[in-house]
């Protein structure tokens, strides 16, 4: 090596440097290609996201404890839930199995009717004092304040019982008004084929309990 002329040495060194740089660039490129292929495309990111800590049924109201966390690679544009308090009080639009990522679009603050299931969720706002003792899951009838039935001539919807012929509906949610504490909205499960048996906003009505589930 020492006998080589300086110009040849310089060429040799330059070639070795080019080889070294080439190897480093190849290693870096390999890493980038592997990362892209592993994630099945570009724009992936390591993210922390909320997952269901328990299995959640459709229409269930979620609590903070229902959410756990997981870490993994997701596309950048996928919406995720990152705060447990953000899901508290929201309703699941679909069944979420345990460990599944909770997508924000599978939740909403109110229940939304699902026509395919043949059920409508109808809100009815009543005075808060009338909902004492009620909870989601119980069945109620909507009667007038004087406890007389709202619409005797209306066709039967729901199950009849001892409330003077009124129909009973399952309460799926109760949400107190944020503007007016004296009123609360009840969300009742009504057959999609039926007409609405009562006005959704009425001061003149109240719920009465038919039975608990």
């Amino acid at each position, binding site marked *: 090596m020492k006998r080589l002329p300086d110009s040849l040495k310089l060429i040799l060194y330059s070639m070795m440097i080019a080889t070294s740089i080439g190897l*480093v660039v190849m290693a870096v490129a390999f890493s980038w290609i592997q990362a892209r292929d592993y994630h099945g495309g570009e724009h992936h990111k*390591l993210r922390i996201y909320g997952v269901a800590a328990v299995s959640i049924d459709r229409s269930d109201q979620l609590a903070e404890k229902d959410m756990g*966390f997981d*870490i993994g690679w997701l596309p950048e544009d996928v919406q995720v839930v990152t705060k447990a308090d953000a899901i508290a009080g929201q309703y699941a639009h679909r069944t979420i199995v345990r460990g599944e990522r909770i997508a924000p679009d599978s939740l909403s603050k109110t229940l939304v009717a699902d026509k395919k299931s043949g059920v409508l969720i109808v809100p009815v706002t009543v005075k808060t004092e009338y909902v004492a003792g009620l909870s989601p899951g119980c069945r109620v009838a909507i009667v007038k304040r004087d406890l007389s039935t709202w619409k005797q001539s209306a066709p039967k919807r729901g199950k009849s019982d001892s409330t003077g012929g009124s129909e009973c509906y399952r309460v799926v949610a109760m949400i107190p008004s944020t503007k007016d504490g004296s009123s609360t909205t009840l969300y009742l499960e009504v057959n999609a084929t039926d007409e609405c048996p009562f006005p959704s906003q009425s001061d003149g009505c109240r719920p009465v309990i038919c039975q608990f589930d």
Partner: protein
Amino acid sequence: MFGDLLTKIGGALEKDFLFGAFIPALIFLTAIGLTIILVIGIEPVSTMISTLSTVNQIMAGTVATLGIIVFAYVMTALRGGILRFWTGNSMFPLGLPWGLVKLGESLQRERYQHLRSRAQRISRWPEILEQFRVNVDKKWEHRPMAIATGADILLLLSRVRQISPTLSEKRLERELASIIEAYGAFDGDSLCSVYEGVKRRLLDWAEEEDTRIQGDCYYLDRNYGCYASIRATKLGNIIDSYNHYSYKRYKIEGEVFWPRMQRVIPDSYIKLVDEPRILMDFSLAMTTLSTGYALFAIVIGPWLWYNFQLWLCLAIAGMAFALFFYRVSVGAAFKLGEMIRSSYDLFRLDLLAALDRPRPDSYQKEQEMWSELSRVAVYGSDLNFDFKIIDREAI
């Protein structure tokens, strides 16, 4: 409060370990952690951490602390390798830097030769002045009686002002010859101011040139050891220069006798020597870890977030930090070199005394003594030499 905390930590840990390994490890791992957190998002990470139980949080903190300490100890163990790498003595990893190292050595060798030729050049101004004096003297002997007028003198002085150190040798000769010619035409005494003007200018340039040569000698001595041991990097050559100093001046094998020297150097002075050494260790560790961060960004980055611009920017930032800290380490090595040189100048005779050798009468004798000792220490030579006679009772 933060200062108190640092003081307490500093007291608990050795300064050497603290600055040479622990703080760089802490900065590096924090930077990596922060990068990952920023990629994932601060809010999700803090939410996730808050969901951990207190026991788990304490455990995570303990594991992180232990991780930093272990990493710092690994850094300490790798200190020799890190120094070899940045001084151009290592082919890590996989011999990849071979071409760079060889090219660096080649360039540094050329630079050394250039500097050496500059440092060993002889100033031309004393010779030019001497020639001018001799030539003027010759003309002075055959002077005619004509007296130079004020206008003649002014014309000659303007010619004197035209000569400058940037002129080529021939042009300078021509300019001086034209001034010397005047001494053939006029009375020499009337041209004293012209002679003084030329002499003053040439002497000034000689002084300037001498100062520059001294500067070049100093620069060469402080930046390079010897031709045979040229390193690929500036840092390597500076370290080599102070390792060679003791041998060049006193024939002391520096790397062999430095540990023995530390025995006779007072603690207060050792602390002064340690300051730049710790700074050099710190900056070299930071250089290495900044390079590590750049590699992390460009190689591991896409696995965290497939975003080329982000990781390229972070890799460039990492390399910029590495360059900055490398420059700092070069400055620290220079300071350390000065301290080590001065340690040899000040305490080498104390070391001789500690080795029970008599105090040498002359510089030459001292070099001979160190040569003998070096041979004994390095090669185990079977020389015989006298020990100093110590009056134990007087002690």
